[in-house]
Each structure stands twice: as C-alpha cells, then as structure tokens.
C-alpha cells in the first residue's frame, strides 16, 4: 500500500493514521477515482465492507466507511467519506458487492448513493417513512401504518412502538446485585420527545 502515491494523486485525501490498517479520508468527488485506482494499481480487488455512520459533530452529518482488501497482498485499507448533503457516490459500478451494503446504508441512515443501479430499501418495507439507525430515532420505533393495507383492515394491526422499559428484559434495580445482568436503561431514547 503506497500511501504517498494516494495522497499525492488525490490531494484532498487526508491520512488519518489508522492504528490497525491504513486509513484515509477521501473527498466525495475523488471517491470513485480513488477506489478504481486502488483496485487497478494497488491490488485492492475485494470490497470487504461498506457501512454508514452518523457523526453529528463533523462537517457532514453522515459518513460512509469502506474497507477494501487486497487478496494478493493480504492487506486492508479503510476509506472514510463524508456525505455532503447526505449524498455519496456509489461504488457499485466498481465493486458490484457494494450494491446491497449501499442499500442497507440508505435504508438505515438515509444516505443517498448517487448512481446506484437499484436504490431501494433492503430491510424495511418500501413505504417505511423513517431511517431507524439515525440517532434521533427511538429504539422502540414510531407508530406508522401496517405495510399491507388489506391485512391492516382485517387485523386492525399497526406498526407500534415497543419500548424496552416495561418490557420483560429490563430490571428496575431493587434487590438485584450490581453484578446481575440487566438491560441498560434506554429511557433516554424512548421518553424524550423526538426533535
């Protein structure tokens, strides 16, 4: 892995001095060229992972982390990309394996991958209005209509919040010892009104 070549070729790239593997912050505009260059000249031929992040303090609210593996040189590289205006270029054209990872990052965080061949949700149903892994989304969920209107009509079922507090896996302290395993108090995510 030639770090100097990467930073000189793409001047906006910043070396983050990763402790476990070479880590760089790449500008969104350079992402496709950088991934293609790493794949074609540096041997990073396998996209090991692609995931979304919510980084509230950064210039951009969301980011994407890409792990690339070289199956010939047996080394990894990690790329950070900030999602300006919640948008990141899609690397599916270079690594087809990124397709479903990007759909998941879109589903969970609402990050839009520009140029994605099939930009649908992958885990939640198509009409779901929220992105559940955002930090302002309560773990318990928010009430929305049931995915199928005809089933909802017969059963009267809705998608209902299911708070941990009051559920079967939360201890309320009392006689249990400090060492007793219990679910953490998640009321901060369930009782605070949504911003």
């Amino acid at each position, binding site marked *: 892995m030639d770090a100097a070549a990467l930073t000189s070729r793409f001047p906006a790239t910043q070396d983050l001095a990763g402790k476990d593997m070479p880590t760089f912050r790449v500008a969104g505009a350079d992402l496709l060229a950088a991934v293609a260059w790493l794949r074609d000249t540096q041997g990073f031929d396998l996209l090991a992972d692609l995931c979304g992040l919510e980084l509230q303090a950064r210039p951009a609210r969301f980011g994407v982390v890409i792990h690339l593996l070289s199956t010939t040189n047996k080394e990894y590289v990690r790329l950070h990309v900030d999602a300006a205006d919640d948008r990141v270029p899609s690397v599916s054209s270079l690594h087809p394996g990124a397709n479903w990872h990007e759909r998941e990052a879109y589903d969970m965080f609402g990050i839009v991958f520009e140029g994605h061949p099939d930009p649908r949700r992958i*885990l*939640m*149903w198509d009409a779901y209005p*929220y992105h*559940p892994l955002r930090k302002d*989304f*309560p*773990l*318990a*969920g*928010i009430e929305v209509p*049931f*995915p*199928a209107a005809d*089933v909802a009509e*017969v*059963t*009267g*079922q809705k*998608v*209902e*919040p*299911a*708070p*941990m507090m009051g*559920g*079967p*896996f939360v201890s309320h302290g009392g006689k249990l010892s400090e060492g007793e395993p219990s679910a953490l108090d998640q009321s901060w995510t369930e009782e605070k009104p949504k911003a």
Partner: protein
Amino acid sequence: MVKSDFGYNSKVEGEVIVTRADAVVNWVRSHSVWPMPMGLACCAIELMAAGGSRFDISRFGMEVMRFSPRQADCMIVAGTVTYKMAEVVRRIYDQMAEPKWVVAMGACASTGGMYRSYATLQGVDNIVPVDIYISGCPPRPEALLDGMMLLQEKIRQEGGSLRRTFRGRTIETKIVS
C-alpha cells in the same frame, strides 16, 4: 365409567363399532395434521430436527411438511416475525383452507421475544389466531412435539362446527357430511 367416543361390543354380531361423525372426523384430522413450516429464524432449525429420525414427528402423522398453504392444515410459525414478514404470514394463513390451526413456536412468535424494537411484530397473535403457544428460545424438539400433541387434543375436542374467535370476530367452519 369412562366416556368414550367409540362403542364396541364383541357380543354384537358383525364386528360393529358405533360412534359419532364428529369423533371420526376429529380422529382423522388430529392424526394427519399437515404442517406449513413458517420457518423465520432459529426455531426453524429445531422444527427441522423434529422432522428428523431422532424425534420423528411422523409418529403423529405430521411429517408431511407442505410448503404450499393450499395443502396444509397447521401453520407452525417458527421464528421472529418482522413487520415486513407479517404481511406474508397473514397472506399465507389466508390461503390455507379451513379447518386450520396455528402454532406459535418459541418466544419470538409468541410475544416478540427479546426483539423489542421498531422492526418486530410483538407476537404473531396480533395478526393470526393462535391455538398453541410453545415456550423456549428456541424450544427443544420435545417441546414442539408436546405442543403438537396438545394441538391434537384440542382438535379431538372440537365440536361439529369449528368456532374460533379472533379480535371479537367469530370464524365458523361447518362439517358437511
């Protein structure tokens, strides 16, 4: 005196057994429950184990797992029902012919289990009427067989018409003989 559905007396000529139509129908139904394996998570592995030779669900006439709801009598919901899948579970239930039964296998199908989150239906009984709940996470195959034997018991006690209620609505199936 034990109340029996079947009357037999060796002194009556011609080897005659006297019974009620309901008893015969229920006997037949309870010994050929064809399950629809709604395997959604790890409970389905235990369901498969129950189908294997060690636990041998075919002792109860239930080995014919039908992946078509049109041919199944009993839906075994084995696993976590997400809201996205709940729609499919209900549609498959609707496609099964009456009489039909539903077994909620394991904690997730019964109550949502440990998945108290935005994505998980908190119990399959919210969308389909459940006859038998089996505890466990996942239940061992013996627990499934115990639940299925309870279901057989329930089928044997059903009257001439199958009357079930779901959310205040009465569903009735009549035996036509």
